[in-house]
């Protein structure tokens, strides 16, 4: 029998039992739909998070003191499998001299040190006092895109401050550019003017958007004066020392620059000598890869749960096909008397099962995408169509049909035509 004829005959059998076929397909729709819902929602979240991160940070190289166990070579992300030298973690060590060296490194566009001023307890504005973290950093932390109003502070200006929109909103009366704020710096008070409001600052680990409540002042003079120091081995003097520095690399030279920087810290830097265990250099691209991988694992895991639903659907097909074989025993006999080979009979029943599976995919994929789209809209992430998963789901539908139809089809092929023709 030609396969086109087989498909036509199988289709005729399925449409002959519309309700039964439809109910069987529902089982597959639920399975494949579940897989697609999780896959499309997961992929959307992944794309959204990674996209947001990549926009701002793809060219960033993060330098953290101590060996935090982020091994760029093993590709994993998360808690270090074997903790690095935790004693050295986040000790001040990257000196002003190191910063200057880094600024002169080929491929580095900007160097953004970042340090919290421990001495600051609160900000005061117009009689209101708010506890507030104040971070010392450099103007490079505020690229054009991040500035909402006003401008960045300038290095060396002790009376300028930048804060995030959230930090500004913490004060009643809409704290804005040109307002004067008092910083409580231990015993002393410093009066500064807010020169800019930003959405977020570069140089932190702002993984998911800029929702931090932070205020920023220039490292010069603030960190030089109030920050921590170490003795610079190369200069022989005490210098302000940072725990964390972010380098902005040439966008197309991130990996090269990252290794150059790593070599510098290993061989020449103050930090490498001051800190036991050196520094960890991690480019954002690696971090993004790590996040992508973790999210990918989660998507695979959760979508895998959808496979359980598909398994239930597969039993549904197998069950209905077995019923169908018994019911149509006589038809099998008629076909065999009229020249149908066992292979043709098997092919017919297998084709029915595969069509049920495929129908489940054809209905389940758009249904899953629709729900996934709804979930993404609800979660306010951009929707991404998971093309790979659509292919996987289609193949799974077909495979489900084949696997669940194989035994019933084999039973059908083995029907004895004499018994079958007698069957009522």
């Amino acid at each position, binding site marked *: 029998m030609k396969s086109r004829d087989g498909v036509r005959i199988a289709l005729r059998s399925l449409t002959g039992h519309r309700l039964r076929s439809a109910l069987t397909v529902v089982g597959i729709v639920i399975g494949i739909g579940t897989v697609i819902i999780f896959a499309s929602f997961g992929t959307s979240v992944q794309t959204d998070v990674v996209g947001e991160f990549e926009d701002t940070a793809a060219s960033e190289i993060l330098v953290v003191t101590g060996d935090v166990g982020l091994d760029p070579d093993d590709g994993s992300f998360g808690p270090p499998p074997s903790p690095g030298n935790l004693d050295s973690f986040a000790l001040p060590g990257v000196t002003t001299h190191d910063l200057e060296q880094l600024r002169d490194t080929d491929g580095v566009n900007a160097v953004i040190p970042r340090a919290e001023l421990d001495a600051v307890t609160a900000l005061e504005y117009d009689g209101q006092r708010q506890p507030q973290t104040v971070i010392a950093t450099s103007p490079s932390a505020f690229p054009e895109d991040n500035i909402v109003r006003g401008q960045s502070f300038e290095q060396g200006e002790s009376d300028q401050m930048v804060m995030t929109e959230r930090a500004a909103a913490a004060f009643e009366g809409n704290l804005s550019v040109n307002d004067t704020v008092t910083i409580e710096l231990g015993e002393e008070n410093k009066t500064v003017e807010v020169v800019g409001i930003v959405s977020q600052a570069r140089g932190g680990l702002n993984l998911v958007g800029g929702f931090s409540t932070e205020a920023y002042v220039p490292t010069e003079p603030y960190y030089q004066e109030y920050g921590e120091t170490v003795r610079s081995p190369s200069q022989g003097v005490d210098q302000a020392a940072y725990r964390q520095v972010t380098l902005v690399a040439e966008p197309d030279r991130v990996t090269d620059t990252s290794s150059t920087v790593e070599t510098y810290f290993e061989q020449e830097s103050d930090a490498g000598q001051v800190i036991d265990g050196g520094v960890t250099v991690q480019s954002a691209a690696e971090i993004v890869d790590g996040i992508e991988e973790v999210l990918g694992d989660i998507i695979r895991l959760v979508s895998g749960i959808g496979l359980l639903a598909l398994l239930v659907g597969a039993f549904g097909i197998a069950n209905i096909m077995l019923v169908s074989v018994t019911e149509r025993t006589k*038809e099998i006999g008629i076909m065999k008397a009229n*020249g149908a080979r066992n292979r043709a009979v098997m092919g017919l029943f297998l084709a029915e099962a595969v069509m049920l599976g495929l129908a489940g995919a054809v209905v389940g994929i758009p249904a899953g995408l629709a729900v996934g789209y709804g979930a993404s809209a609800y979660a306010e992430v951009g929707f991404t169509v998971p093309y790979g998963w659509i292919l996987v789901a289609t193949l799974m539908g077909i495979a489900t049909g084949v696997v669940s139809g194989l035994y019933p089809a084999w039973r059908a092929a083995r029907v004895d035509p004499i018994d079958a*023709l007698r069957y009522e």
Partner: protein
Amino acid sequence: MATSPSDPVVSIDNVRKEYQLGGTVTALDGVDLLFEPGSYTAVMGPSGSGKSTLLNLVGALDTPTSGDVIVAGENVARLSETERAALRGTRIGFIFQTFNLMPRLTAVENVALPLMFAEWSRSRRRERAETLLTDVGLGDRFDHLPQELSGGQRQRVAIARALSSDPELILADEPTGNVDTETGAEIMSLLRDANDRGNAVLLVTHERRIAEHADRIINVRDGVVEGIEQVEHTRPVGTEAEIGERAVGAGQETTGETR
């Protein structure tokens, strides 16, 4: 495969058939028969006589326990299951008491069923099926489903199907058992037409009056051939009134023996 005109279309040589049903049941006990090409033979016998077994063997649906069954030059016992299917599809046409049409296929598709399994193209199949259906008087029922046809019409579709691959042998198993007497006469007349065109017909029945339409009657009882008689057709066979009259009593009798 090829048979010369003189070779018998079916040759049965010392055939035994036993079934294991709790004990050994002998359905055929040493049967020798020959069916010439273009012959018209009736096999007659009561329930359990072995005539259904004989039909299954000649139809290549079953294989003998011993002895040889040769159909269209092929020794059935030596064929694989696939080869037997091909033999059934191209060299033998089946007509059953219960019509045995595919319920979800139209008249044309039912007629074309053996041609589909023999991989004819769709257009050729349709053409052939339409010709045959027109021949049996169903020129206006091409795309009807079996359930939309009367019993007689269904049996005529089945006859057209049996003729579709122009087989050497047509096997008719109680073909009038499920239709009224008038329709029965039409069906017997169609079988006679087929035979006149050169297809050998093997008619299985338990009714003498139906058997008498054939040229030869083989009486089977308890698995052995009891006797073979030639039928002299002194008058034109198969006028409707005559058959109708004779088959009145047969209807009830038939219901007891559907297998």
